[in-house]
């Protein structure tokens, strides 16, 4: 299978080029190229990738667990003296999980887009960008070294920009695209610095490299050499991850990114691109294990973001904005997990989240499409009867995200919560606090998502006349992915049934070789061992077998209860007593306004960063330096030339007496020299 690894990212690249060329050829014409051709190429490419990934997966399953690594080097990308950076793909158990998600859910969303984007003048351009995104994302997850990962990292940022601002004729969309890209770049800067630190640290050991398997070996063999830079590098890489995965403080771009087409929101800003940060930390788990402080910060930021975003999502009226904040919140859970050392749990939640979040987004797209562009949930209602498939899939996905067993969200979220509360970390109270935050956030999750469910599909019909024209269920190309994703949201959880409930946690075992060998640094400090490796986890289970089992069940029950409580509260507020929400917001007044306006963070950034930045670039860089100094120098050269000229020309007096005078001077000088 190894010779074919390149097909996985390159099939979509070829698709992107093909559709891109088509789009360009038709650019000046009235209509774009044939939608049929474009969709066959555009959907065919990711499906090809998926098939190859599936084949690799099957082959991996047939291989022994210790040898589940496939590699393919394409060419040497950078050769600079002792440093060789190759364009090499690397697939291990972790990569294949990510690749399956990206290509599988990616293909579904491509198919959905066929129906959603029908009739759009930029149809070909859309599929070109989307395929380019697939190429970048796959390069990111399959990259063997950090620079190649970074190529994919930047590539997805670019495609995000292109797709958010897809309908660029509306300047607000273009601004949203810019915001996403610029905020991302800030994170990328930190990511680069982290990379450089690792390069230098490995160089001190004699072999400067950014190849991930090599670094992993070096860190394993000489942890002391890396210990010094580990915290700094991990934090810097994490800042990059906050940019890419929309965590505090660089989360501000994701809600604005909803300006793009809904399938884009589903693919890029729910299932794949935003998960790149989590993947990166999991990939570099061997380094994070050396830096417990960094891990604590990661977990803290994750938990804070989870509850922070949930609170904002709860107050939003636009269905996509709610989902956007929900994504930010769920990503917070993933970072909480990896911060606690439970890497497999984080990736597990990544997978389940991809299913139900994509389903939610695509479902909302279906609703928006049916309502002719309406996105305000307070102008929807009673859609259940009219859009049965959308309604059922949306409901299923909502139950999943709320953490209702036996749907997927329950298993993954519960595992994270359990890993947090039973985790060991300095200071001792930290995991408890983080659990508290995550627990409250879980309740809020159920609340805000069912608020949307009840206001959109139930209750009184508040749809405006203009939106009623084409109120019908969406076409098959759109409903099919919804059903598949909803099915995934139901069954995906069974991959990670914990031992406490009698399962064997297949997902965990699958990922064991990736995270094993170094355990989790947290485990060393732990009072009770927490780790992503089966070994320490079993020790923990055994140690607390007496009453430990019961504790785990207790927390499991708590998770379920808070989820159901959230649903019940939403039911009460939006079905039973619809007048209550208005009363509450009026009562809360200022606080409500604070939350509704996203805690005014955008305004804060505007004041403290954007405006000074703009002033800096306008008044200092532009006026002072560019126009003043540089122009001054350039003009100055010209002025100097003129000055010299006007001085020198005074010698051209036109008077022959002056010339004769200078001749005599010269003559005398020559005579002088001859006599000497």
């Amino acid at each position, binding site marked *: 299978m190894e010779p074919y690894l390149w097909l996985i990212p390159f099939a979509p690249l070829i698709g992107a080029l093909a559709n891109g060329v088509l789009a360009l050829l038709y650019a000046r014409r009235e209509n774009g190229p044939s939608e049929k051709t474009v969709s066959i190429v555009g959907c065919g490419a990711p499906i090809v990738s998926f098939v190859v990934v599936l084949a690799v997966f099957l082959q991996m399953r047939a291989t022994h667990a210790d040898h589940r690594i496939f590699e393919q080097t394409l060419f040497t990308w950078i050769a600079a003296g002792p440093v060789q950076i190759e364009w090499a793909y690397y697939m291990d158990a972790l990569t294949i999980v990510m690749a399956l998600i990206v290509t599988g859910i990616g293909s579904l969303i491509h198919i959905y887009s066929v129906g959603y984007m029908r009739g759009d003048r930029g149809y070909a351009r859309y599929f070109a960008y989307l395929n380019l995104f697939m190429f970048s994302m796959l390069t990111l997850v399959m990259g063997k070294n950090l620079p190649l990962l970074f190529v994919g990292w930047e590539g997805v940022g670019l495609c995000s920009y292109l797709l958010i601002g897809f309908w660029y004729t509306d300047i607000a969309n273009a601004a949203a695209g810019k915001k996403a890209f610029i905020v991302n770049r800030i994170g990328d800067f930190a990511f680069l610095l982290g990379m450089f630190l690792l390069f230098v640290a490995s160089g001190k050991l004699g072999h400067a490299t950014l190849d991930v398997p090599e670094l992993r070996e070096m860190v394993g063999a000489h942890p002391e050499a890396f210990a010094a830079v580990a915290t700094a590098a991990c934090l810097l890489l994490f800042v990059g991850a906050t940019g890419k995965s929309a965590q505090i403080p660089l989360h501000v771009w994701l809600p604005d990114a909803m300006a793009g087409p809904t399938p884009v929101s589903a693919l890029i800003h729910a299932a794949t691109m935003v998960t790149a940060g989590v993947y990166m930390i999991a990939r570099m788990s061997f380094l994070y294990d050396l830096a417990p402080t960094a891990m604590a910060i990661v977990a803290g930021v994750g938990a804070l973001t989870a509850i922070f975003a949930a609170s904002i999502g709860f107050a939003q009226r636009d269905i996509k904005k709610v989902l956007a904040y929900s994504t930010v919140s769920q990503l917070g859970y993933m970072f909480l997990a990896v911060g606690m050392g439970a890497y497999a749990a984080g990736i597990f939640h990544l997978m389940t989240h991809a299913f139900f979040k994509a389903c939610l987004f695509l479902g909302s797209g279906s609703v928006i499409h049916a309502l002719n562009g309406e996105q305000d949930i307070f102008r929807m209602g009673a859609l259940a009867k009219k859009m049965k498939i959308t309604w059922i899939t949306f409901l299923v996905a909502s139950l999943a995200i709320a953490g209702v067993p036996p749907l997927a969200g329950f298993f993954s979220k519960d595992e994270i919560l359990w890993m947090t509360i039973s985790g060991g970390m300095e200071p001792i109270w930290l995991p408890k606090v983080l659990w508290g935050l995550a627990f409250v956030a879980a309740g809020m999750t159920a609340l805000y998502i069912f608020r949307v469910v009840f206001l959109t599909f139930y209750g009184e019909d508040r749809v405006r006349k203009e939106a009623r024209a084409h109120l019908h269920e969406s076409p098959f190309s759109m409903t099919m992915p919804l059903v598949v994703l909803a099915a995934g949201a139901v069954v995906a959880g069974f991959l990670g049934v914990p031992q406490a409930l009698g399962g064997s946690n297949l997902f965990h075992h699958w990922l064991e070789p990736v995270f094993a060998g170094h355990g989790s640094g947290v485990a060393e400090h732990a009072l009770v061992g927490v780790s992503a490796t089966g070994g320490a986890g079993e020790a923990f289970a055994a140690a607390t077998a007496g009453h430990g089992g019961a504790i785990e069940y207790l927390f499991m029950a708590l998770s379920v209860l808070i989820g159901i409580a959230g649903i019940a509260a939403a039911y009460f507020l939006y079905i039973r007593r619809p007048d209550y929400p208005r009363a509450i917001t009026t009562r809360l007044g200022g606080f409500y306004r604070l939350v509704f306006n996203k805690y005014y963070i955008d305004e804060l950034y505007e004041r403290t960063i954007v405006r000074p930045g703009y002033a800096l670039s306008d008044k200092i860089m532009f006026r002072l330096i560019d126009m003043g100094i540089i122009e001054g120098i350039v003009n100055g050269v010209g002025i100097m030339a003129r000055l010299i000229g006007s001085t020198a*020309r*005074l010698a*051209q*007096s*036109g*008077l*022959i*007496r002056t010339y*004769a*005078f200078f001749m*005599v001077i010269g003559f005398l000088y020559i005579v002088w020299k001859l006599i000497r």
Partner: protein
Amino acid sequence: MTPVTMNHYLALSAILFFIGVFGVLFRRNLIVILMSIELMLNAVNLSFVTFARYVGSIDGQVATFFVIALAAAEAGIGLAILVMVFRNRSTVQADDLTLLRY
């Protein structure tokens, strides 16, 4: 009385030469300038002849002939130019001829 040596002649030649230079530099009338140039040439002639006499070689006198011929030709052309200038500009003052000024 001291005998007249080569140095006396050379001194005279130098003095005449510098009088000529003075004239070229500081007189405004073009005719006077031309005359001063002639004076400089004649001073040089004197110097050549002196050397011919006191060194014993006749080469000096040969050179003198060259210089005389040259001076004559040059004086002719110079005066022709001067006449043309006068016809065009109605002046023979050097200070008035400043067309080639910046």
